[in-house]
């Protein structure tokens, strides 16, 4: 019996539901040596900003129990060079492309979206709103329903009707369902859950914070229970909204957990650092696991843990 592994997010079609996670695969070039990018559901590119960014000072990372902290600070060449170099190359690889954008003001989200609106070969735009809002004392857009909505509305207005917008939310909030509702109202076609959690490591030799920025984003298996909970909570209230799940997925079993909670697709981040082939292995393992559990279509497994009220 053939298994239908495809998934779709607000009209965008993907041959399979396993994506890279933004910031954990660059623009795909380095991974292309290990496997063909066309075998992925999609490559989600590193969040790109308007101008070139040096990123934060080092040290930028610390390993933690079953996870890591990072404070890369969105190092990148800026949208123009990105569109000139990376997108055509990705298209040549036959990869499905989801472009992640990040801004420091509502206007920047608008500008980035305008630059993307007519670029051919992009399947969707992921809007990373876990960025400090310079117009609001550096509070992260995603941590406030109004600023989150403002960033998404700016993207929505400027991107045109075709390209689905996926709002990527932060788990560092009291009520993620409220933030989800707010960005959906503002025009998000889908959600990406979850970005990293704010954490800190103190070096017990220097007796100072390990990272130059003191805090960093916690990712990896340690946060998987938080991701599953966030996806489950949002899926319970929004049965139809497309969700790209992520957070600590290292195996097909892990991906399946997020899918059962309600993810229509799964991004793999930190696991790629431990194993460049992780994303392909996860893709193969999840397909097998869905079949073993008797699903003939991937979409039937999405949110399956909600049946009978989850009991």
């Amino acid at each position, binding site marked *: 019996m053939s298994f239908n592994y495809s998934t779709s997010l607000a009209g965008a079609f993907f041959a399979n539901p396993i994506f890279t996670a933004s*910031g*954990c*695969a*660059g623009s795909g*070039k*380095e*991974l292309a*040596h*290990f496997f063909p990018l066309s075998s992925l559901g999609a490559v989600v590119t*590193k969040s790109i900003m308007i*101008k*070139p*960014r*040096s*990123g*934060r*000072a*080092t*040290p*930028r*990372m610390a*390993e933690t*129990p*079953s*996870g*890591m902290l*990072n404070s*890369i600070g969105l*190092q*990148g*060449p*800026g949208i123009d060079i990105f569109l000139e170099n990376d997108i055509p190359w990705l298209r040549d690889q036959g990869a499905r492309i989801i472009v992640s954008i990040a801004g420091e003001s509502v206007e920047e989200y608008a500008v980035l979206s305008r630059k993307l609106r007519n670029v051919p070969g992009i399947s969707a735009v992921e809007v990373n709103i876990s960025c400090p809002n310079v117009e609001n004392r550096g509070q992260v857009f995603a941590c406030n329903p109004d600023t989150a909505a403002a960033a998404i509305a700016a993207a929505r207005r400027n991107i045109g009707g075709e390209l689905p917008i996926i709002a990527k939310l932060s788990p560092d909030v009291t009520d993620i369902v409220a933030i989800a509702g707010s960005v959906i109202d503002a025009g998000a076609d889908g959600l990406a859950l979850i970005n990293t959690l704010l954490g800190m490591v103190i070096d017990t030799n220097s007796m100072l914070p390990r990272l*130059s920025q003191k805090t960093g984003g916690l990712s*990896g*298996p340690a946060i998987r229970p938080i991701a599953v909970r966030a996806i489950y909570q949002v899926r319970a209230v929004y049965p139809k909204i497309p969700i790209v799940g992520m957070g600590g997925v*290292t195996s097909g079993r892990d991906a399946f957990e997020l899918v059962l909670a309600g993810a229509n697709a799964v991004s793999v981040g*930190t*696991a*790629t*650092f*431990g*194993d*460049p*082939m992780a994303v392909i292995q996860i893709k193969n393992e999840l397909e097998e696991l869905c079949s073993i559990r008797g699903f003939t279509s991937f979409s039937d497994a999405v949110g399956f843990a909600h049946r009978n009220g989850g009991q």
Partner: protein
Amino acid sequence: MAEIGGALINSKAQQFSAEVISNKRVGAYNHMVFAVNELAHHCRPGNFVAVLVGGASSSMVLRRAFAIYRASLRSDGVGLLELVVAANGNGSKWLAAQLPGSFVDLIAPLGTAFGIPTEPVNALLVGGGYGSAPLFALAEILKGRGCRVDMVLGASVAGKIYAPLEGKRSVNSLTITTEDASAGISGRVSDVLPDLIREHKVDVIYSCGPMAMLEAITKISQSHEILHQCSVEESMACGIGVCMTCVLPVEGDDGITRMTRSCIEGPVMDGNKVLWGHSREIPEGVWGR
């Protein structure tokens, strides 16, 4: 002469489950030999290996980087890959505790290699602690190209000098420095460099060791206006160029200084182009600051 950078980097990298063939304590280090396939054939001095540590259900999610000490391909097709491991934290302790017969997941060869001059030159190889590891294979190659090869190895204490007998054979001279005077000359490698450079008319320095040492050597190489290829050691999360944790400010051929990945545009870099000493800050003038 250096072939730093370029599109083909990591094109020979393979992921491989390698059997531990031998594991011997040498001073403060473990000398470990792994059986691999023909990937050994592609390893060049300066390349590194990324090792998965901790076994199944490990809480350590990131690979550990180790310079390749030696790599060789036996006539039966079995490759041998040798590392010199300092058991520092949990990951390297785990690795150093793996007994012959166990298997370790590794990716190699990764990163840039030391550039080999096309004509005979006078080379000075400088290693700090386990930083000597990649220098012996380099010395052999340089010798084979007719170079004069002098070596300086430094460490805090004698036990942290890694200098096996067979390695010493391929160098014209070996100078040792220790900070506590437990072996060789008392002091740091940088104390002895100026004299050696003059004495041996050094054209190029190859170095590997702690960042502070590389910075000190760069000051000397710049003042003597000689080439300096160094293998840097930044914390790496991925080792394959996708995470952007391993960066340091390096001036490019276009004169622009960028935060540059040491895993893929390094670990071997042109020391004279690195802006040293800028941990915890982005130096002024860096692209995108």
